[in-house]
């Protein structure tokens, strides 16, 4: 049966199980928007296309499904770029569909023409330029498969306007032929055996759990492996939630702002088991002194990550869930009591320095606010963050026990991610409590999406940690630039009035005793709610490994403040 290219697009999208798309119409995708009216899909009209990609990303991360973002050609498509790069860095499965000028106009600098496949080539897992209606079905089928399989990532389909309008015979492609794309599943048996030998010899092993644990659905296997081999689990930022924070074997977050005992455990380890993580510079510090006595086993589905940053002894290229299941069957039960006792000693020392044990000085600190949100939500909310100090404090003080609970831009560090990703997460799990914990800087980058939240009735709670500073840059200027503050002070609008202008209930909190009440207000008020916390202006996130420094050369929390507790 003949259908227009736009209809074929929706036929295929619906067959992928898509119920919601995030987008913005324009000249070059109008036929797609016209055809959309005939299909059972909910369209979320964003206020800026960057919001569409972050929402699709938040949706994907919260659900494990593919998120869909749409934009028109030229500026519409280029506005997607930051969100696409964010999804690429964090292996998030999104499909972006952009309109393009007529095929016969391509290359002629037509109105709103931009080489979108060229621009997005290095920041997509794959992309397509479609010039004919009969190419659409196959491309959409492949795009969704590529986006969600293997190491997931963003895929973009750029569809010329004529291809949207022209009619073609529609037959849904049951099979896809991608001879160059066969994601590995099992690791070779010989490599597994070598890994088993190293595991048996280890006395001070540490698991490094990355985003891959969640993506691969290997949460259960990780737990089984850790318990069977009695191995402590350190997490990357995006690995948080893949292993219960409350578990005695959990070391929490590693890296630049990881807890000291976690980094010490890594540095003193004799075997690192890297599970679906990529040894980012933010978690390794100085590579030359990184875990110097540890042998390394790296389970990773993307072969290009093997030996990229850290040379490993045994690479196991395959799907983490599959490889771990294979490995669990081969390893013997182990006991590392002495090692765990040693780590627990470091842990106790860390806890005495914890900001939670500071004396109440009447000031409002972000860690306290985050901890209060954690308590009020029973630690069960889905949390999205922006990027910066509040993000690290959230990672430290909102411990999560389940995967997909903490949604944050890790690799890309994209400010403005928090609010739109929370809206996307709400569409994925409308029954979950969802909090966007954001800074005053990042919030203003995608603040326009407040309108989207209102229009959709998205039940997201927005907590702005307002210190009138770009806090993390300020912290770096304090530590590394002799407090020469350059372009970090923000003269902010009245966030309460901004919320009210959107019809969003809002509260401002200026003192610790008001925190609890404001959080409850947000929880009890349906729909979007904004709470502004006027927090201490010049607090720093500790511990901190300066960029490029040794992982155990941390700037620790000042002890002085702890002693005041006494």
């Amino acid at each position, binding site marked *: 049966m003949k259908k227009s290219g736009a209809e074929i697009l929706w036929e295929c999208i619906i067959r992928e199980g898509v119920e919601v798309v995030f987008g913005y119409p324009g000249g070059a995708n109008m036929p797609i928007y016209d055809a959309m009216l005939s299909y059972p899909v909910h369209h979320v009209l964003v206020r800026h296309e960057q919001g569409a990609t972050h929402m699709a990303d938040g949706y994907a991360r919260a659900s494990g499904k593919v998120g869909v973002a749409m934009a028109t050609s030229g500026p519409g498509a280029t506005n997607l770029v930051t969100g696409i790069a964010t999804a690429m860095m964090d292996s998030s499965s999104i499909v972006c569909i952009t309109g393009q000028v007529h095929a016969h106009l391509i290359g002629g600098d037509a109105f709103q023409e931009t080489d979108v496949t060229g621009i997005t*080539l290095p920041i997509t897992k794959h992309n397509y*330029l479609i010039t004919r209606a009969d190419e659409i079905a196959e491309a959409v089928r492949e795009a969704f498969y590529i986006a969600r399989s293997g190491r997931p990532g963003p895929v973009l389909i750029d569809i010329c306007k004529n291809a949207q309008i022209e009619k073609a015979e529609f037959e849904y492609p049951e099979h896809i032929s991608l*001879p*160059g794309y*066969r994601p*590995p599943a099992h690791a070779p048996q010989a490599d597994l055996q070598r890994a088993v030998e190293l595991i048996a010899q280890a006395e001070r092993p540490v698991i490094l759990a990355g985003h891959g644990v969640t993506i691969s659905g290997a949460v259960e296997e990780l737990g089984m492996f850790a318990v069977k081999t009695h191995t402590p689990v350190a997490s990357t930022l995006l690995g948080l939630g893949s292993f219960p924070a409350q578990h005695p074997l959990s070391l929490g977050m590693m890296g630049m702002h990881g807890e000291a005992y976690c980094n010490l455990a890594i540095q003193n380890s004799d075997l690192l088991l890297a599970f679906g993580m990529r040894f980012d510079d933010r978690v390794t510090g100085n590579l030359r002194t990184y875990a110097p006595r540890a042998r390394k086993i790296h389970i990773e589905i993307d*072969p290009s990550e093997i030996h990229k940053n850290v040379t490993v002894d045994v690479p196991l*290229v395959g799907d983490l869930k599959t490889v771990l299941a294979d490995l669990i069957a081969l390893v013997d039960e182990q006991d590392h009591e002495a090692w765990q006792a040693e780590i627990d000693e470091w842990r106790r020392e860390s806890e005495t320095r914890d900001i939670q044990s500071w004396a109440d000085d009447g000031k409002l600190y972000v860690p306290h606010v985050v901890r209060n949100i954690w308590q009020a939500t029973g630690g069960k909310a889905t949390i999205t963050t922006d990027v910066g100090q509040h993000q690290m404090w959230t990672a430290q003080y909102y411990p999560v026990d389940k995967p997909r609970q903490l949604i944050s831009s890790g690799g890309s560090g994209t400010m403005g991610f928090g609010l739109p990703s929370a809206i996307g997460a709400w569409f994925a799990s409308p029954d979950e409590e969802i909090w966007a914990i954001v800074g005053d800087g990042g919030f203003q980058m995608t603040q326009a999406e407040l309108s989207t939240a209102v229009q959709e009735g998205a039940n997201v709670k927005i907590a702005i940690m307002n210190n009138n500073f770009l806090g993390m840059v300020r912290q770096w200027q304090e530590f590394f630039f002799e407090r020469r503050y350059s372009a970090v002070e923000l003269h902010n609008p009245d966030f309460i009035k901004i919320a009210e202008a959107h019809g969003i209930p809002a509260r401002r909190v200026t003192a610790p005793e008001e925190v609890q009440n404001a959080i409850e207000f947000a929880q009890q008020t349906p729909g979007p709610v904004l709470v502004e916390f006027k927090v201490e202006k010049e607090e720093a996130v500790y511990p901190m490994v300066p960029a490029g420094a040794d992982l155990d050369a941390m700037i620790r929390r000042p002890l002085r403040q702890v002693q005041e507790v006494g």
Partner: protein
Amino acid sequence: MQHTMIVLVENKPGVLNRVASLFRRRNFNIESLNVGRTENPAVSRMTIVMDSEALDARKVEANLYKLVNIIDVQDVTNQPVVARDLALIKVKASPEGRAEIANLAAIFRAKIIDVAPESVIVESTGTEDKIESLLELLKPIGILEMVRTGQVAMMRGDALGVRHTPGANGHNRI
């Protein structure tokens, strides 16, 4: 050192751009890149020569597999491989100087394929070394223009090149 890779890719628009973009983005240096058709119309074949350390060759292979259209990558460096380069060399040649060039060409089993009043074009096929040697000898006579295809390579018999990355694109052997 030089590394030579044989890369089979899907014959689709933009694939060359994807490969070239990857080399640029990851900061790998290409010495030469040759792309052409194969016995299978759906598959194109690239021979890529790059100047790199061994570890980089491994990284290149793994990164190539990140491209959806890449079917197979083999490192044929130091393997039983036949590699050929084709050069067209336009040499300054007066009518009386042609004989000398013809002699040199004969020694190298090269051919003179065009004769003009003041120049000839020499076609030479062979290994890089052979062509380099011929060029050395022609240089004093006067090279006006030169073009080379870059290497094309093929493994002998049923030998295969090295695959550094087990698991990549379903290849589990090393």
